[in-house]
């Protein structure tokens, strides 16, 4: 087993990996740039070393600097997390050359799967179904791209060859929009992945996104750890994931699991990975891509299979065999993950910044929080807007759902606009409760539009009084305020001596649509 593991990442995923490394009795090494000197992952680590600078290319993407730290501080292995260098075959090769174990698949597999076009061709040959209408035109001139798009028919999707996570991805509905979208996607891909290459794909209407977790050791043992339903997305970014996938027949689950294992074997996969499928309304499923790394949403798999995926990754990288066979793995209960983003759902999900003046995550039975933030931390434009992943486990889908709704309502965040209310609205939607998920769920149900304001209620009048009280602070000791209980039924007028803003409607509430005790 290794002695010292460097986590070449930041934020929640670095924190999550550090925890397992330390639980295993190993030394966890963090790296950080100028923005992150006192970040949570740095506070947790046993050792932390600076990657001087502020840009990603000179810090978290700086393979050379990271490997020289490994040499200097006797690091045995690197865990790349997700994003950054995690799917960079060149980095994995450089690790091998430097004598540091890369915790992930082999460089050849990373590079084969990193090239999304080659990956599809390989899967097609291996008999795994692929998305219809796919055309390989990786380095074609614009005229060819336009012809290919016309040929497969609009809408089409532009995706980053080296990509994932929705970065550099664009839906194009008309030929006129193709050129600009292509260039914008390419620039975004260059920024996010250091590779401007993008490609075209036929856009499937109302698809579900269901992915399978795979694990393979170096002795050829390959298993899947069941699926994750990741259809609830906004702007191609997953926001709610669950396992098991609702409304997925046992028969289809088994077929897809077998296809995932078949895909993993076809490429000689080792370590942890994810095979992503699109599932059409007709139950047909198509290979989308393989993510050769730990996924953001891996915790839901950990909760339903009761496995620690990071521990298994480290063990496999150290040459251990898988400690179980396929038949020994089961899905138990139901897990849901919600991604808390610093963004304003009322302003088209624009990223928001600020300081986390209050940050009190919920705790309790069956609740897990993965985050890189602590109370008082600043949320800046420099990094991804994900603040935390809230994950719950319940004995069945209904109890997991109720637990998540409860937990979202307990989460205190002040100072940074975020999507807590929005997540609650999505979970409360009858179609979500029935498990009728697909990737256009949010716009189809109008959930991307701001919630309708509820009228004056006892609670809203109380809030009015509290806002006014807070504006007059600081003060100590118990105080008493009197709040009217409701509007005058005769006139509909509300009067409050406490609140000059009331008449002007100067306060803006984010109303609770369901489940409020006082609503």
């Amino acid at each position, binding site marked *: 087993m290794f002695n010292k593991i460097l986590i070449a990442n930041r934020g929640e995923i670095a924190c999550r990996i550090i925890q397992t490394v330390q639980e295993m009795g190993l030394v966890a090494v963090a790296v950080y740039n100028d923005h992150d000197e006192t970040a949570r992952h740095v506070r947790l680590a046993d050792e932390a070393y600076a990657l001087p600078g502020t840009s990603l290319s000179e810090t978290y993407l700086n393979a050379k600097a990271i490997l020289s730290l490994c040499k200097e501080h006797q690091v045995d292995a690197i865990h790349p997390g997700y994003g950054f260098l995690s799917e960079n075959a060149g980095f994995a090769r450089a690790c091998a050359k430097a004598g540091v174990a890369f915790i992930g698949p082999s460089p050849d597999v990373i590079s084969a799967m990193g090239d999304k076009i080659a990956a599809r061709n390989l899967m097609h040959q291996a008999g795994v179904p692929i998305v219809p209408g796919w055309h390989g035109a990786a380095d074609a001139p614009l005229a060819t791209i336009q012809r290919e798009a016309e040929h497969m028919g609009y809408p089409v999707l532009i995706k980053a060859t080296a990509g994932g996570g929705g970065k550099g991805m664009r839906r194009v509905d008309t030929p006129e929009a193709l050129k600009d979208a292509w260039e914008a996607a390419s620039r975004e891909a260059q920024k996010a992945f250091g590779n401007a290459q993008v490609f075209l794909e036929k856009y499937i209407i109302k698809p579900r996104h269901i992915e399978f977790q795979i694990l393979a050791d170096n002795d050829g043992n390959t298993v899947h750890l069941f699926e994750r339903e990741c259809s609830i997305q906004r702007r191609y970014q997953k926001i709610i994931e669950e396992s098991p996938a609702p409304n997925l027949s046992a028969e289809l689950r088994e077929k897809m699991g077998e296809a995932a294992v078949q895909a993993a074997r076809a490429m000689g996969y080792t370590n942890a990975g994810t095979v992503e499928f699109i599932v059409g309304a007709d139950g047909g499923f198509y290979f989308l891509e393989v993510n050769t790394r730990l996924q953001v949403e891996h915790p839901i798999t950990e909760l339903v299979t009761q496995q620690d995926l990071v521990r298994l990754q480290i063990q496999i990288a150290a040459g251990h065999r898988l400690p179980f066979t396929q038949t020994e793995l089961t899905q138990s209960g139901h897990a849901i993950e919600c991604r808390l983003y610093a963004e304003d759902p009322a302003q088209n999900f624009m*990223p928001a910044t600020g300081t986390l003046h209050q940050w009190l995550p919920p705790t309790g039975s069956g609740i897990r929080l993965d985050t890189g933030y602590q109370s008082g931390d600043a949320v800046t434009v420099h990094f991804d807007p994900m603040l935390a992943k809230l994950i719950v486990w319940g004995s069945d889908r209904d109890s997991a759902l109720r637990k998540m709704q409860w937990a979202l309502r307990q989460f205190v965040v002040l100072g940074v606009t975020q999507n807590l209310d929005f997540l609650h609205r999505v979970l409360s939607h009858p179609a979500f409760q029935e498990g009728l998920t697909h990737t256009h769920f949010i716009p189809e149900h109008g959930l991307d539009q701001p919630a309708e304001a509820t009228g004056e209620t006892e609670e809203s009048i109380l809030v009015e009084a509290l806002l006014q009280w807070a504006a007059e602070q600081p003060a100590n000791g118990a105080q008493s305020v009197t709040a009217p209980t409701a509007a005058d039924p005769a006139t509909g007028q509300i009067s409050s001596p406490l609140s000059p803003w009331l008449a002007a409607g100067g306060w803006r509430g984010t109303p609770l649509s369901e489940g409020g005790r006082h609503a």
Partner: protein
Amino acid sequence: MRDVTIIPLQPGEALLQDDHQVRPFYWRRTASQILLWLGGKQYAMPLPEAGQSSQPTAGGRGANRGHAAPASDKLTAPMPGTVLKVLAGPGDSVTHNQPLIVMESMKMELTLNSPATGKIATLHCQENQLVALGELLVQLTPEAEA
């Protein structure tokens, strides 16, 4: 009317007590507003000073007089971030929805289109500039006035 009692615990944190319930609430005063968390919901109230200064002033002299829904003559940053590209310069004629600025925030790219047809009066940003939410990027002279 009913009586509720506020029991302050520490700055920014207090309990709200009435005859059948005790609930925590949290607040924070920022430069421009009071933020409040109660019962799983967040609220914000602009402070009076901020309320006055944030009142949008009317557009140019006589702008869009008689129009029911006048087009805006300003392009402001819809998110904090970096200006990546400036696609037009002062004096340029632009059409409604023509891309003017490309912004980036948190590795997400966003193209900002012209809110009106007209001429660019002044440019208030340059490439690679960090801008705040709501910051004025481009001042336009709409066609009706030009």
